[in-house]
């Protein structure tokens, strides 16, 4: 009984819960992704991103709630989901003893292609991800970036309507990351709906039309990147004082501009919707109070700020080494 109320290439998730013996990894997630969107699923280690992806790609069953992908329920219509989607899991599931070409052909066969069709599609994709030269090498000899590219190519064998990418750029260098972003944009331009998880704020800012922030199995916030930034009340000014001893005085003087917090290295941070336009008044107020200013900088809010504000911790802790 595939649910038909959703469009062919969209995702609908309602009250999704998943427990692993004693651990609630996903704790009541609701989300909706429209056809043709790139949806960024952003969260720190252990937030429940991969668990959600595994449920949406039929690899795991939900403990409660339901999910419809490309018009099919992930449990009762798993077969239809599998036919419509492409997946690149977080741990690229590659066999080190196979070659890129072999694996692409196998993937084609798994999707019902005839031998010749699978071979042709494989060649096409090898070219697309620039792996023609390495096609006959065993995957054990591929670099991290090559593996990611192959994994993406494998996910595209069946021309999926919905593409799931679980942390596709983790561990990639900036050039490889940019190349993958280009590829994702191109796929999206061709109409592919993309559900992408990441720990990188920059990635969702670059790619995603909408972002869901997941923390401890729950959606902490959802919206376009700019909507999320707006929730913070606009940009902030970073103010360095010549004399740190006068910080409290400065704070009192600046209170009327907006919420004022300490900066880690000393100095203050004033969040004000005025942004750069507030620089002159801020300096004037401090000058009138006889407080010398060393530097003023405008800090446009990043999703990291959103993350901090919403979850009480940063998206990527300093020790993060996935």
């Amino acid at each position, binding site marked *: 009984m595939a649910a038909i109320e959703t469009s062919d290439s969209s995702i609908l998730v309602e009250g999704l819960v998943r427990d692993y013996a004693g651990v609630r990894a996903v704790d009541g997630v609701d989300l909706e992704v429209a056809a043709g969107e790139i949806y960024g699923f952003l969260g720190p280690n252990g937030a429940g991103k991969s668990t959600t992806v595994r449920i949406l790609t039929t*690899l795991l069953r939900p403990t409660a709630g339901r999910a419809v992908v490309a018009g099919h329920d992930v449990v009762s219509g798993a077969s*239809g989901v599998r036919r419509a989607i492409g997946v690149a*899991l977080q741990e690229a*599931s590659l*066999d080190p003893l196979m070659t890129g070409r*072999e694996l692409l052909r196998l993937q084609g*066969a798994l999707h019902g292609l005839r031998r010749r069709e699978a071979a042709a599609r494989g060649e096409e994709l090898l070219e697309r991800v620039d792996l023609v030269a390495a096609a006959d090498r065993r995957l054990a000899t591929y670099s991290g970036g090559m593996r990611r590219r192959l994994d993406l190519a*494998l996910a595209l064998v069946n021309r999926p309507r919905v593409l799931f990418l679980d942390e596709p750029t983790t561990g990639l260098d900036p050039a490889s990351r940019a190349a993958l972003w280009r590829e994702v944009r191109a796929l999206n331009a061709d109409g592919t709906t993309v559900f992408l998880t990441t720990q990188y704020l920059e990635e969702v800012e670059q790619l995603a039309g909408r972002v869901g922030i997941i923390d401890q199995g729950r959606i902490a916030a959802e919206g376009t990147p700019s909507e999320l930034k707006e929730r913070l009340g606009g940009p902030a000014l970073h103010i360095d004082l010549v004399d740190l001893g006068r910080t409290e005085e400065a704070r009192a003087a600046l209170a009327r501009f907006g919420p004022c917090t300490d900066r880690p290295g000393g100095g203050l941070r004033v969040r004000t919707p005025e942004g750069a336009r507030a620089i002159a008044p801020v300096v004037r107020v401090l000058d009138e109070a006889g407080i010398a200013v060393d530097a003023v900088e405008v800090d446009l809010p990043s999703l990291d700020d959103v993350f901090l504000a919403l979850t009480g911790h940063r998206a990527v802790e300093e020790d993060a080494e996935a």
Partner: protein
Amino acid sequence: MSAVALERRPAVQARVIVALAQRALAVQLRRAQFLIPALVLPLVLLAVIASGTSAGRNLPGFPTSGSYIGFVIGGALLQGALLAGMTAGTAMAGDIEGGFFDRLLAAPVHRASIVLGRVVASLVVGAAQACLFLAVGLIFGADYAGGVLGVTAAVVLTAMVAGAAAGATGALALRTGSVELLRNFFPMVFVLLFTAPAFFPRQLLSPAMHAVTRFNPLTYVVEGIRAVLHDDRALGSPAAGFACAAGLLTGATALAVLAMRARTRGA
């Protein structure tokens, strides 16, 4: 696009099974350490037997047809088939541990096809290995009175045992997902071999062992192999051999399919 799901189209699933079997064979060939036990152990055994103590054959009750090497080659085939089939389970557990399995499960593939791909690959390995062993046996002086038909029948029986071992160990792999556990299972091969009269005729075993061998279906398979190879019904019953091999193959494959179902339902 047809309305019938890919999983339900026999022609598509036949291609899937062939593709998965091909992949299993290619990878197995590249994984030398997997091949060594399956090939070398039985060959060493053959060599030792051929060069050394063939005193056994002077014991009363020992069959007279064929040479001793011709007699024990049935045991060597059985051993090779069990070892080769076991590597299928280990490889499957490796796929599960390494995440390759997720790729298969995320594809619109009938769950049974994944199991059958492994079993089919093991049938092929078992048959190829049987041909090799029988050729080596020839070099060491065995003769096969059963001729082409007998040799073919022996090859088929051996292949079936390899497929059955793949199904049984595949079921274990699907239940546990642990390469470690499959490795620890390795000695079972020897229990199975020694509770079947793989290297001695049943009549020479102690009464207790003799009783045990009656309950090991491999007893009838190895006796059947000898019977067809040497065209001598005194060595065993080909019909019983085929019946047992077919039973083991279908039973073990069914177990693996059930284990697959349990695994994906409980995911």
